[in-house]
C-alpha cells in the first residue's frame, strides 16, 4: 500500500490550513465586494420570521447594493445570543432590543447615536415624540411600534354564553366580579381568564393608576410593596373564586395561548398580541378593551410602550448609511407594515399610523384603536427598566406562581419581589 508519508502529510496539512484560512477570510468579507451587507437581528414566532424575512428581501430589492443577512431567534434565545455576541464584540448591525435590556445595553454603550445618521429619516416626528424616544438624552434607539396594555375578550364566547361585559368605564373590581360570576355559571364551564399575575404591562398600568411608576427616573423601582400586594390580591381573589385557570390547567405561568384559548372568556395582555393570537382561532372573534381604570386613577396614567431597535456601536462606518435606510424602512415605510403587519404594534410614524388606521379592519383596527386611545390621552413620562433588572419579570412570575400555589402570602410575595428587584439594581450599580 502506498500510504501517505510524513512529508506528504505535512504538505497536506499545510494546504488544508491555508485553504481554511482563505475560506475564513472570504466569509468575513461582508462589507466589500458587490455592496453593503447588513446583519439584522430580531425575535418572534415562525410567522414573524417569515414576514420579516420577506420584508428584508423587499428592502434589498428596492435598494440595490444593500444585502440583508437575517438573524432570527425565539425571544429567550435572542437575548442569550445577544449576550454572547456582545461579549465577542460581534453584534448584528441592526438589532431589536428586548424591553428589560434597553438600559443595560445603553449602560454598556452598544448603541450608535441615530441623530448623527443622516439616512435615518425623522422628518415626520414631532419634537416631543423624538424627546420621548431618547435614552439618557440621546436618540440612540428607534421605536418601531407602539402597544398598550389591554383586556382582550372572545366576543364569540360572550355571545354564545349570553353574557354582557362590564361597561367601558368599569373598574378592576367590577371586572373581577363579572369574571367570577361568569366562571360560576356558563354552559361550557369556561374560566374568566388565565392566571397572569405576572403580566408586566397590565401591572404597570395598575401602578400608574395608583400614582406610581414601574421604574423611576433615577433607575429604581417606582412602586411600593402595598401596590404590588393589592395587585396580587386582585388576582388571588379571582383564583380563590375559580375565575382564573389553575397553574395545572394552563401548564404553568406564561400560558400558551394555543392551549388556553378555548378555555377562557378573556385575558390581559398587550394590544399587539391580538394580531397573532386571533389567527390561532379563526372561528372566533376577539375584541379589545382598555384596561379597567380605578375609580381614583391618577391623571396621566395611560402610557405607550415602544419596542426599540438600534444600530450597533461597532458597525463599520461605511455601512452606516445603509443601516440608516433600513431603520427608516422599518419605521417610516408603509410597505414594511404591509408585509409584516401589526405584530409589533401600531406604526410609530404618526403619518403611517393615520394611514394604517384609516384602512384598518378587524383585528388590526382593534389593535390600532386601543393604541389611539392612549396616544390621545394625557400621559405622564415612562422610564425604561434600569440595569440589573433583566430578570425582574422572571422574579415576578416566580412570586406569582408561589402565591398561586398557596406557598406565599400576597404581602410576603410583594416584599420579596421588591427586595429581589432592588438587590439586582444595587448589584448592577
Amino acid at each position, binding site marked *: 500500500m502506498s500510504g501517505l508519508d*510524513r512529508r506528504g*502529510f*505535512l504538505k497536506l*496539512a499545510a494546504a488544508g490550513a491555508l485553504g481554511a484560512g482563505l475560506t475564513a477570510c472570504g466569509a468575513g468579507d461582508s462589507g466589500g465586494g458587490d455592496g453593503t451587507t447588513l446583519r439584522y437581528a430580531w425575535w418572534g414566532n415562525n410567522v414573524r420570521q417569515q414576514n420579516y424575512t420577506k420584508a428584508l428581501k423587499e428592502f434589498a430589492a428596492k435598494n440595490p447594493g444593500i444585502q440583508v443577512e437575517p438573524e432570527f431567534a425565539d425571544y*429567550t434565545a435572542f*437575548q*442569550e445570543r445577544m*449576550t*454572547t455576541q*456582545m*461579549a465577542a464584540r460581534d453584534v448584528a448591525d441592526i438589532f431589536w432590543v428586548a424591553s428589560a435590556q434597553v438600559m*443595560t*445595553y445603553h*449602560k*454598556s454603550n*452598544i448603541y450608535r447615536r441615530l441623530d448623527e445618521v443622516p439616512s435615518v429619516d425623522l422628518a415626520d416626528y414631532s419634537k416631543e415624540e423624538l424627546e420621548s424616544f431618547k435614552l439618557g438624552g440621546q436618540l440612540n434607539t428607534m421605536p418601531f411600534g407602539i402597544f398598550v396594555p389591554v383586556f382582550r375578550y372572545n366576543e364569540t364566547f360572550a355571545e354564545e354564553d349570553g353574557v354582557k361585559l362590564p361597561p367601558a368605564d368599569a373598574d378592576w373590581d367590577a371586572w373581577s366580579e363579572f369574571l367570577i360570576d361568569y366562571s360560576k355559571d356558563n354552559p361550557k364551564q369556561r374560566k374568566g381568564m388565565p392566571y397572569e399575575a405576572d403580566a408586566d404591562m397590565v401591572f404597570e398600568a395598575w401602578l400608574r393608576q395608583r400614582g406610581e411608576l414601574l421604574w423611576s427616573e433615577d433607575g429604581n423601582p417606582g412602586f411600593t410593596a402595598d401596590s404590588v400586594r393589592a395587585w396580587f390580591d386582585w388576582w388571588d381573589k379571582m383564583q380563590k373564586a375559580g375565575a382564573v385557570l*389553575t*397553574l*395545572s*390547567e394552563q*401548564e*404553568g*405561568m*406564561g400560558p400558551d395561548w394555543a392551549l388556553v384559548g378555548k378555555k377562557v372568556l378573556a385575558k390581559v395582555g398587550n394590544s399587539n398580541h391580538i394580531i397573532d393570537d386571533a389567527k390561532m382561532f379563526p372561528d372566533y372573534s376577539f375584541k379589545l378593551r382598555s384596561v379597567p381604570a380605578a375609580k381614583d386613577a391618577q391623571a396621566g396614567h395611560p402610557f405607550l410602550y415602544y419596542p426599540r431597535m438600534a444600530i450597533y456601536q461597532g458597525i463599520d462606518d461605511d455601512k452606516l448609511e445603509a443601516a440608516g435606510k433600513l431603520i427608516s424602512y422599518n419605521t417610516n415605510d408603509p410597505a414594511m407594515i404591509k408585509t409584516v403587519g401589526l405584530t409589533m404594534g401600531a406604526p410609530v410614524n404618526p403619518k403611517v399610523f393615520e394611514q394604517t388606521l384609516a384602512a384598518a379592519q378587524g383585528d388590526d383596527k382593534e389593535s390600532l384603536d386601543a393604541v389611539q386611545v392612549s396616544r390621545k390621552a394625557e400621559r405622564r413620562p415612562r422610564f425604561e427598566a434600569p440595569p440589573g433588572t*433583566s*430578570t425582574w419579570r*422572571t422574579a415576578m*412570575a*416566580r412570586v406569582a*406562581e*408561589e402565591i398561586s*400555589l398557596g*406557598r406565599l402570602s400576597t404581602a410576603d410575595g410583594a416584599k420579596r419581589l421588591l427586595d429581589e428587584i432592588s438587590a*439586582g439594581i444595587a*448589584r*448592577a450599580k
Partner: protein
Amino acid sequence: MSKLHRQGGAAHVFLIPWWLGLVLVTAVPLIASLYLAFTDYNILSSPKFNGLENFERMFQDDYFWAAVRVTAVYVVVSIPLQLGFALLLALILDRGLRGLAFYRSAFYLPSLLGTSVAVAILWRQIFGDNGLVDRALSIFGLELGSWLQNPSLSLSTLIVLNVWTFGSPMVIFLAGLRQIPEELYEAVKVDGAGIVRQFTAVTIPLLTPIIFFNLILQTIGAFQTFTQAHVVSGGTGGPANSTLFYTLYIYQQGFTNFDMGYASALAWVLMAAIGLVTAVHFVLSRYWVFYGDD
C-alpha cells in the same frame, strides 16, 4: 533519526487538533472561569475583582439552596433506582433470551434519546394536564392534574425520566455479567446455593467493579442534568423551584441575569462537589468493591 522516533513525530502532528481542542476549548475557559469566579462580571463590561463576594453571596441566596436541594434529591433518589433497574434488566437479558440483540438495542434507545429536547417535550405530554398519566389515573378516580405543575410531583417525573434512560448502564452490566466465570456458579451450586445465594455470593461481588464504574459515571451525569429540566420547566425551574437544578440555575445566572462572575463561582462549587462526592465514593469503594486480585 530512528524510524520509531519519526513515527512519534508524526503522532504528535496527528495529536495537534486534540491538543488545540484541549487547550482552547477546555483549559483556557476553565482557568478563565476560575478567575471570573472571583469577579463581578456582567459580560458587557470588564470583570472587576471582588474577592470571595460571589461565594459569600451563595449562603444568603435562597435559590442557590433550592437548587442544591433539588439536585441532591435527584442524585440520591434517581441513581440507585436507575442502576437497580439497569441491573435487573441486564440479569434478565443475560439468561439467554431469544432476540437478545433486539432487546438490547431497544432498551438502549432511551439512553440515546433520554436527554434530548424531543423526549422532554414528550414528557410534558405524558405528565401534563389531561396527559396520558392524568387520564389513566382519572379512570381510578384520581384527579392529580398536571404533575409537572405540582411542586410535590414535578421532580419525580424527571427522576422517572432518568430511570428510563437505564440502557447505558444496563449494557455495561450485561458485559460485566458475561465476564463472570460459569465455574463459580457451578461451584456454589454444588455447595447447595439457590438463585438468591448465587446472586449475593457470586454475581454481586464479582460485579462490584462494574457497579462502581456505573455509579461514578451516572452520579457525575446526574449532577450535570440540564436539558430535561430546562425543557420541562420552560427554563424557569418551576413550579416553585421544584425543578431548579443546579446547572439550570448556573445557566440562568450566566445567560439570563448576565451575572457571569456569580455563575462561574457556582460552577466551581459544583465541580468541587462532584470531586468531593467522587472522592468519597473512591474511599468507600475500598470496603465494598472486589477486584478479584484483593
